[in-house]
C-alpha cells in the first residue's frame, strides 16, 4: 500500500531564509498526523508544498504514490483549512461549502444533498444561509472544515485551525476534529505550535525546528523517548534536566554527584543531559530506601494546579526541580515552602539526551 503523502528530501528557501530543509515524511492513509513546532519553523511552508501552493527548491512530493511535485493545486486531490480560514466573504455558508462540488460540475440536486449531510457532520444545520460575518469563530471553523471535506479529498491539510479560538472552544473543537476524522476516514495533516493539541489528536507527530524534522513518532513515544533536548522541552508541560558526563556504564557524573541511569554504550564518554518528567519524581515519604537516585532539597514553591500539586524544589544552589503530585485520596498536608524534603527517582525514569 502506498502512503497517502510522501515527502522526499524537500527543501525550500525564501531569499536567505531556509524555511524547510531536507524534510522527508511518510504519512499513512487515514492517519491523523501532526506537524508540531514553534512559530517560524517551516510548518506552513511544508503544508503549502504538499498542497502545491509553493514549489519546493528540491525534492519530491508524492500523493498516493504518484509524483505530484509539479502538478498544480487544483489538480491535486487535497483539501485545506487555512490558518486565516479564507472563507469566501461574498458567499453564504451554503455557497462556501458547495464551492468545491460546483467546481467539479456536480448537479445542484446532488450538491444540495451532500451539503446537507456535511452540515450535519460539522453540526451547522440550519445556518446554511448565514453570511460568514454573522458566524462565531467556532462556527467559521466548522464551515472551513466542511468546505474542505465535502469534495472528499484524499488528504486534508489543516494549518493551525484552532489558533484563534478560546481555550474551552478549542478543547471542544479538538475532540470534534478527531470525531470528524474518524467519521469521514480521511488522512489529516494537522499543523500546530501547541503541543497539547498535537498530543490529544494525533496518531503520530513530527516535531520541527528551524526547517528540520527533529523526531517523528506516536505521542507516547515522543513524550517518553524524546530524541534531543529540544523535543524533550517542547513536548509536555515541563521537564527537569541535569547536565553531566557519562563516564561509566549507567552512571552520569553531575554537579549534584553521581546519577544512576540506564546503561547504553552509545553515550560513553559524552557530555549528556539527564531528563526526568515532573510526574516521575518521587517526593517526601515516597522516597524509600530502594530508590536509585535520592537528593536532599528545599521546597521553594508550592502551586495548587487543580488536578495535581506542583512543587519547586531547590537542589543545591542552582538546580530547581519541578515535581507534580496527584492528590487523589491523599490527605497528607502540603509541603510548605522552606521545608526540607527528599526527592528521588529510579534510573529507568531518567531520559538521557545529547544536545
Amino acid at each position: 500500500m502506498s502512503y497517502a503523502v510522501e515527502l522526499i528530501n524537500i527543501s525550500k528557501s525564501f531569499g536567505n531564509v531556509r524555511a524547510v530543509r531536507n524534510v522527508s515524511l511518510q504519512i499513512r492513509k487515514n492517519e491523523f498526523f501532526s506537524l508540531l513546532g514553534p512559530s517560524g519553523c517551516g510548518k506552513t511552508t511544508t503544508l503549502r508544498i504538499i498542497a502545491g501552493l509553493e514549489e519546493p527548491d528540491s525534492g519530491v512530493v508524492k500523493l498516493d504514490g504518484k509524483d505530484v511535485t509539479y502538478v498544480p493545486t487544483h489538480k491535486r486531490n487535497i483539501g485545506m483549512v487555512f490558518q486565516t480560514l479564507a472563507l469566501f466573504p461574498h458567499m453564504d455558508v451554503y455557497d462556501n461549502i458547495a464551492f468545491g462540488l460546483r467546481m467539479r460540475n456536480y448537479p445542484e440536486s446532488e450538491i444540495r444533498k451532500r451539503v446537507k449531510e456535511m452540515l450535519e457532520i460539522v453540526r451547522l444545520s440550519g445556518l446554511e444561509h448565514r453570511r460568514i460575518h454573522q458566524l462565531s469563530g467556532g462556527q467559521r471553523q466548522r464551515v472551513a472544515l466542511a468546505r474542505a471535506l465535502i469534495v472528499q479529498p484524499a488528504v486534508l491539510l489543516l494549518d493551525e485551525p484552532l489558533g484563534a479560538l478560546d481555550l474551552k472552544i478549542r478543547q471542544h473543537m479538538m475532540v470534534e476534529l478527531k470525531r470528524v476524522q474518524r467519521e469521514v476516514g480521511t488522512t489529516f495533516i494537522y499543523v500546530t505550535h501547541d503541543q497539547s493539541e498535537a498530543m490529544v489528536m494525533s496518531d503520530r507527530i513530527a516535531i520541527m525546528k528551524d526547517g528540520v524534522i527533529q523526531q517523528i513518532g506516536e505521542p507516547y513515544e515522543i513524550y517518553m523517548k524524546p530524541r534531543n533536548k529540544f523535543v524533550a522541552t517542547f513536548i509536555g508541560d515541563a521537564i527537569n534536566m541535569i547536565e553531566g558526563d557519562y563516564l561509566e556504564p549507567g552512571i552520569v557524573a553531575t554537579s549534584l554527584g553521581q546519577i544512576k541511569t540506564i546503561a547504553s554504550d552509545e553515550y560513553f564518554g559524552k557530555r549528556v543531559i539527564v531528563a526526568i518528567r515532573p510526574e516521575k519524581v518521587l517526593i517526601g515519604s515516597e522516597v524509600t530506601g530502594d530508590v536509585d537516585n535520592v537528593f536532599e532539597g528545599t521546597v521553594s514553591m508550592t502551586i495548587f494546579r487543580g488536578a495535581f500539586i506542583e512543587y519547586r524544589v531547590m537542589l543545591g544552589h542552582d538546580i530547581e526541580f519541578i515535581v507534580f503530585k496527584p492528590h487523589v485520596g491523599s490527605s497528607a498536608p502540603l509541603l510548605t515552602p522552606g521545608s526540607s524534603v527528599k526527592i528521588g527517582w529510579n534510573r529507568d525514569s531518567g531520559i538521557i539526551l545529547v544536545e
Partner: protein
Amino acid sequence: MSIIDIIRRGKKLKLFIFIGIPMIYLLIFFFIPFLIAFLYSLGMFKQVVYQYVFVPEPSLEYYSGLMKFPGIFKSIQRSFYYASLTTLGTFLISYPLTYYIGVKLEEKYRDLAVLIIFTPFWINFLLRVYAMRFILHEAGMINLILRLIGIISEPIKFLGTDTAVIIVMIYSYLIFMVLPLYGVLEKLDVELLEAAATLGATPFKAFIKITLPLSLPGILAGSLLVFIPAVGEFVIPELVGGPNTTTLGTIIYSFFLRVRGVTGWGIGSAAALIYIVLILVASYVYMKFVGGEVRLG
C-alpha cells in the same frame, strides 16, 4: 474652557460641524444652482437688463426649442456612445493593470507603480489634450510609426473623428477607473484564490468566482466615476473632434457661452436638466443591473 473643549462637549455642535457644514455647502453650491437652472429651463427666472425677475408660470418653450435644435438627438446619442466606450476602454485597460499592481506585484513596489501611472496627470489637462493632438495629427507620431513599419502608405486622419475623441477621453478618464479598481484589488486576499485552488478551481474559474465578484464595488464605483462626467464631456470633442463630434456637453457649452442671453441660458439649462435626468436613469439602471450583484461580507 478652550474652544476644543466646547467642541468636544457639545454634541449638537459636533453634529453641526460634521454634518451641518457639509450640508450647507451642498445647499449653496449644488442644490441652489440646480434649482436656479431648473427655474431657468422652465422660463421662470429671467434676467431683464441687470435685474432678475421671477415669472410664476412655467413654460416648456426652451425644451421644445432644444428639441428643434438640429442634430440634438444625434448628439445625445453620441454623448452616451462616447461615454460608454470610454467606460469600457478605461475598464479594459485598468483592470489588468491594477490586477497586476494590486495582486501580483510585490507590496513594496505598489505605491511606486501607482505613482508612475499618475505622473501624466500632474500636467495640466489642456496641455495633455494638446499633446494628444500632436500625437494624433496626420504628421504625428502614430501616423509616423504606422508608416515606418509599413502598415499604411497614406496618413490616417484621426483628428475630427470619433476615434480621436474616444482615444483622448479614455486617456483622460483612466485614473478615475484605476483608483477604485486598485482600491479593491489591492485589498484582495490572495489566500481566497489559493483556497479556491485547493477546492479544484482552475485559475480562470477562481477569477470568475472570487476575484471578479469581490472587485465589483470597485468596478461599479469606477464606471460611475468615468461614465457620468464622460456623458457631459465637452472640452475633448471641441479640441480633438470636429463638426461631427458634437455632444450634449458641447451643446450646453455653446448655448451658455456662445448663444448666451435669456434664450441661450434657458435652452442651455433645459439641456443640462435633460442631461441630469438621463444620467440618473442610466446610473439607476446600471446600479440595479451590476449593483444587485454586490454583496460584501
